[in-house]
């Protein structure tokens, strides 16, 4: 029996989607606005995209942001995964409670405090602030998220699978790479994506820990918006939205295709038992 959508369901879906996507749609629409005034439609145009290409400051900021996000997400994923393994696997080592408490602290710490304390640290140690201090700060921030995600996967992990690998002659280090890692990969990838987006949209911590010459996109947009939103910002936002959308769609097509392949293999195997 197929159930007809009631007007109530239709309305709630429409309202929900509108609530989520209306702001984004507005940004996209106004990025094609010929008028310089953000709130007045002046006809269709792609000129802001052309002028974006000449706006080196904005492009630089985008490039810095991307690099910071890639590097910090990767480092945070490695460190966070290792921390998760230590917490789950080495049951009760000395200082475990302290360690796990400290791992979770950045989760609940307000960004302003994290940023400020990192700034104080960098000043005290005397590191030149800039690109690498932002990376370090983002690693600190994102690592605990990765740890939480990977840890929850490891807790449900059947250790006898690793034991089976050892039993068959595979040394522990190799076992980690050929058995453990492939099995926790979805959690590790999820952790990486979380770290990447955290870094991508961080404004507060980056502002605290940056130095001359390293401006991230959120910082740039924020400082420009204070002078008024320019359609160029809408344009670069649209490009970012486009990239993210392509990424998400690509990932879902990839998983869908693997699912289809799996089902085909099952049908084939069932056909000739």
């Amino acid at each position, binding site marked *: 029996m197929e159930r007809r959508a009631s007007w109530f369901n239709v309305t709630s879906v429409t309202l929900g989607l509108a609530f989520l996507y209306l702001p984004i749609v507005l940004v996209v629409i106004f990025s094609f606005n010929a008028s310089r005034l953000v709130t007045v439609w002046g006809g269709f145009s792609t000129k802001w995209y052309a002028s974006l290409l000449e706006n080196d400051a904005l492009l630089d900021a985008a490039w810095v942001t991307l690099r910071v996000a890639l590097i910090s997400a990767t480092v945070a994923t490695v460190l966070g995964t290792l921390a998760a393994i230590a917490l789950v696997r080495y049951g009760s080592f000395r200082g475990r409670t302290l360690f796990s408490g400290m791992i979770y602290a950045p989760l609940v710490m307000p960004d302003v405090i994290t940023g400020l304390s990192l700034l104080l640290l960098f000043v005290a140690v005397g590191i030149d602030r800039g690109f690498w201090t932002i990376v370090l700060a983002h690693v600190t921030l994102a690592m605990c998220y990765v740890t939480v995600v990977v840890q929850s996967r490891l807790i449900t992990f059947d250790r006898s699978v690793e*034991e089976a690998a050892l*039993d*068959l*002659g595979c040394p522990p280090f190799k076992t980690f790479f050929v*058995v453990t890692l492939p*099995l926790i990969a979805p959690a590790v990838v999820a952790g990486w994506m979380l770290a990447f987006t955290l870094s991508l949209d961080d404004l507060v911590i980056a502002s605290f820990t940056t130095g001359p010459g390293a401006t991230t996109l959120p910082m740039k947009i924020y400082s420009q918006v204070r002078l008024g939103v320019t359609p160029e910002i809408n344009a670069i936002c649209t490009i970012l939205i486009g990239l993210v959308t392509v990424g998400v769609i690509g990932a879902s097509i990839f998983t869908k295709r693997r699912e289809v392949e799996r089902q085909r293999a099952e049908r084939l*195997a069932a056909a000739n038992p």
Partner: protein
Amino acid sequence: MVAAVGSVRRSFAPWNDPASKPFIEFRGVTKRFADFVAVDDLSLVIYEREFFALLGPSGCGKTTLMRMVAGFEEPTEGAVLLDGQDLAGVPPYRRPTNMMFQSYALFPHMSVEQNIAFGLRQDRTPKGEIAERVEEMLNLVKLKPFARRKPHQLSGGQRQRVALARSLAKKPKVLLLDEPLGALDKKLREETQFELIDLQQKLGLTFLIVTHDQEEAMTVADRIAVMNHGKVIQVATPAEIYEQPNSRYVADFIGNVNLIQGRVSASATGATRIEAPGTGAVIELDQAIDAKVGDQVWFAIRPEKVRISLDAPLPGSPNALSGEVWDIGYLGDVSIYHVRLASGATVTATVTNQSRVVERPITWEDKVWLTWSRNGGVVLAK
């Protein structure tokens, strides 16, 4: 083939030969988890090419014992030796043992083929040989059509067979099988049991198997160790375990048994008399026992060794009890008679159904006599 295996097995008894060297040896092994004692000062010797079964109730330490051979647990006290070498400190991946896990522990991200090939690949076996061996294993466990499936696309029994094939693929010196056939249906299980025996004979490997199924242990094993609470109660061949259990625990654990409590009233070389005032029976048997006159003992007799009859034996003859048929269980091949004695105790007797009985000569509430021969049962002091 089967005959050959039988004749080889009949003459195989290294445990009776003082010159034979132990292959796996547990020397006073104790394993504690916090303050729980899982294995308790256990000593046990297993010989090369032996098919050895561990039997015992759940939680008695069977898996723990195996894990100490495989290297996943170290004994708290004592030592495990393989071929004369103390295994202490040797990591699992350097031990010539392979284990089939109770939970199968298949690699979920690898196909059946890749699972089976995994161990061979660790040894850098040449590609062609790996393919050959995988093929052989797939045929053995009848999983050829499923070679490319992932474990989650298999049924429980199929997964179990993959686990078996994977642990066999390297032809390890010692194969540890933890409940290897539990998920198989009866027919496939019996087939696989015989294939295991065949394989073990052909390859000359040492198998250590854990099972809950006593019939399985009796079928496959050269010797059986009956365990309880982390201790070995008896180690013997299946026939000895069944016919000469050393304690009430073993007699009761393996098969069905009638236990009659009594006191030794006379003991001579080669003959013993026991009086069981509770049941009014006088038991005589051609067997010398450890117990002295006056000691409390139990007389154990299997139901199939008890004869049931409507006619009274000669007055005063030993090894006879009278009672009333309380219940009859019809199992097709045999019928089980539960006979209630005057004392209230119940004794069971099984009778093979040799003709298609419609009307039983002996039926409910009949007064019957139970008798047995002088070497039908055993006396247990423990």
